[in-house]
Structures are given as C-alpha cells and as structure tokens.
C-alpha cells in the first residue's frame, strides 16, 4: 500500500483507522527481524520497539504533524532505531540493577530543554507503571475514554464511538475521568 493511502486512511475516516494501522504495522514488519539481528535484541524486544515506533508514527500522522518530505519507511525506521537504542539502555541498566528507567515519556519532547529538565526531575518513572493499575480502579468507561483520547481520537469521534450525546459531554466526562486519575497519581506524590 502506498504511503498516501495509509496516511489518508489514518486521517480521513476514523472508523476505518484500525484497518490502516494494521496495514502500516504489516508493511514494515520486517524491521522486527532487522532489529533482532542489528541490535541483538530478542524477537519479543524487537517487536516491542517496533510496535512502540508504529504507535508513535500513527500519533504523529493523526495529529497532522507528519512531515511529508519523509517517506513513511524512513520516518518509521528512524523512530524504530531510537526505540531500539532506548530499549538496549533499559536492558543494560536493568542488568546492572539501575532501577530508574532512562526511557523518557514521549510528551517531554514537547518542552524546551530547561523546562524538560525540571519536569523530568519531578517525574518518578516507577509511578508510570502504576497508572495501569489506577486505570482499572477509575471504572471501565473512564479507562476507555482516556485510552481513546490518548490514541488521538477527538471528543466528537469518542462521542460517536461510545454513544455520548455530543463532544461537549465527552469533554466534561473525559476531564472528570482525568481528574480521578490525577488524584490517584497525585496522592502518591504527597
């Protein structure tokens, strides 16, 4: 499938997004094998890095931030390489019993260096792993709405998917769910 078809499929009709996500995943799935041989990763680790890279690429495309001067292959290859390097560092540090993961949250890249350093120091990366547990405690609907939101769906699309009356109702519900989650995370920072 051509790049344009995948990009259009991901951005133009959210109802068929999942189909084009799979198309993108399958198109460059051979990266996994290359990652295994080039970076000496297990298949599982290389798969993990590749799927992480595909998710990052999808989110860039959906947010209309994909630079069309790149081919999807070149772009995905670049993210995949970075993810592999991150993973190797993480594995090495785990072996050396350095518990703090060096993998930085995706969002930090939005901040300029000075602000990034400040926020980074305030983030306890072990807390990130606890979020999965918190999501199970805030209710199924809340978990679903937050996952769809982070997956790049707009409030209107979420309303359509989950049967909310309109985008405003989705937004207020989503923010309320987010407050619940923030409250749980914040309690651990007290």
């Amino acid at each position, binding site marked *: *499938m051509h790049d*344009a*078809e*995948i990009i*259009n*499929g991901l951005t*133009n*009709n959210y109802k*068929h997004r999942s*189909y*084009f*996500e*799979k198309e993108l*995943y*399958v198109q460059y*799935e051979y990266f*996994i*094998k290359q990652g295994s041989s080039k970076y000496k990763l297990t*298949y599982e680790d290389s*798969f*993990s890095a590749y*799927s*992480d890279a*595909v*998710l990052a690429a999808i989110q860039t495309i959906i*947010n209309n931030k994909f630079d069309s001067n790149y081919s999807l292959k070149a772009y995905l290859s670049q993210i995949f390489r970075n993810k592999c390097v991150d993973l190797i560092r993480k594995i090495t540090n785990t072996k050396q019993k350095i518990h703090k993961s060096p993998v930085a*949250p*995706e*969002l*930090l890249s*939005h*901040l*300029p260096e*000075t*602000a990034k350093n*400040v*926020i980074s120091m*305030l*983030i306890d990366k072990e*807390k*990130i*792993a*606890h*979020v*999965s547990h*918190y*999501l199970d405690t805030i209710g199924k609907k809340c978990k679903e709405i*937050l*996952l769809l939101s*982070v*997956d790049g769906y707009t409030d209107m699309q979420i309303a359509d998917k989950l049967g909310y009356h309109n985008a405003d109702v989705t937004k207020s519900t989503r*923010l309320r769910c*987010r*407050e619940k*989650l*923030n*409250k749980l*995370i*914040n309690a651990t*920072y007290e």
Partner: protein
Amino acid sequence: MQRMNDLNENTEYIEAYFKDQLNDAEKRQFEQRCLEDELFARQVAVFVTAEEGIRQELLQQKQQEWAGISQKPAIRPLKKIISIRLLPYMAAACLVIAIASYFFFRSETPNQLANTYIKEHFTLLSQTMNASNDTLQKGIAAYNNKEYNTALQLFQKVYQSNPANSKAKKNIGLVYLATKEYEKALQQFEELAGTPGLYENPGLFLMAVTLLERNKTGDLAKAKALLQQVVQQKTEGSKEAARWLKEWR
C-alpha cells in the same frame, strides 16, 4: 480541596499546551511557569505521568492486537524440551508431515490466491488524496459499508461528469466484482485497461483477478495470458502477477 480544584482547572490548560493549542506567547508563559512555579511544575509532572501511563496501557492493547497478525517466527529453545533420544522419531514424523503437506497443501490454487487478494485489497477502499471530490469519497464510504448500489450510483455519477476519472471507472468495476457481476466487472476493467495516458493502470491486472475469481472453464488460461502481459508491460500489479505466475509453474 482548593489545591485539588487548582489541579483540575490546570488539566485543560496543560493539555492545551501539549496539543499545540496555545499561541506562542501562551506557550512561553507556560514554559516559564514550569521553571518558576513549583506547584504548577508538579501538576505538569502528574499530567505527563498520567499521559505516559495511559500510552503504555494503549501500547499493550495494540501489541496484543498486532501480535495476532504478526509473522512471528516459531523459535523455541529446542534443547530444553526435546530429549536427544526422541530426535530420530521426531525427524521421521517431520518427514511424514512434510510429505503430506506437500501433497495436501502444495500451494493456494489460482482461485484462492485471487480470492485472498480481493479480500485483502478490496474489502475496504482507501480514500484518495483528492478530498474535494466529495461524490467519489461518498461512493468509497458507501462501498466500505457494503452499500454497493449506492456506491455504484455515486461512482457512475462521478464517471459521467468526468469520463477521464479512471478511479471512478476502477471503482465501478470493483463494485461489480464485489457483487459477483463478473461480466460487467470485466467490461469496466477492459475499458480501464484501454484508457491511454494513465500513470498507473491496473486494468489488465484486475481483469486477470476477476477471471481467476470467476474461475470458469478457460478463465485460468486467459488470466495467465493477461498476467504475463502485466509483467511484460510492467503495469500496476506486475509484482503480484510475477509472484503468482512463478507459483503456478
């Protein structure tokens, strides 16, 4: 309580920053607050923690979904699970299975290949770059919803208003293929194949696919001839055509 309210109000503001919804001045102000206001910086840290945690959960869900379609090689630590003494028996069993597989599952038949190709490529049509062509887009949406009559009418409308629109022509043929009206599909694809000046012309290849799908007496021979033509002329579908021809040798 007041502190919690502040937290809630700021969630929307922090979200707006990370979604690039603030103007340049607002962005700078946000970044400055991260440096000067410790409480605010903590709220940003909580936001980033939540967002990354949700992303990790999302990634796990996607991984489960994609692992299902993955071509994972079946590598197992054989030494741990196979006793040396069993190896001759297993080798014999493998040989029997391999021979049986050769006879029973040699390769997909041409009809199966075409059928798989249609399912993979034509169950859903992707939307084109030309988003302004509303009728064509609506036709594609109708096709993807399996509303073939509506799709056909819309594609025909586009084609009648602009006979140079080869995409509409192709899609009319695909509707007929989906509804198993093979003669009409063949006619559309033949006309498409005869359209001069197209950068990519899938007409011949789609004719071959239709013939293989129909699978009447003589269709296979005609399809092979068409596929050979596709390979020679290097028209759209030539890679697939070459692969199929190689498999049927």
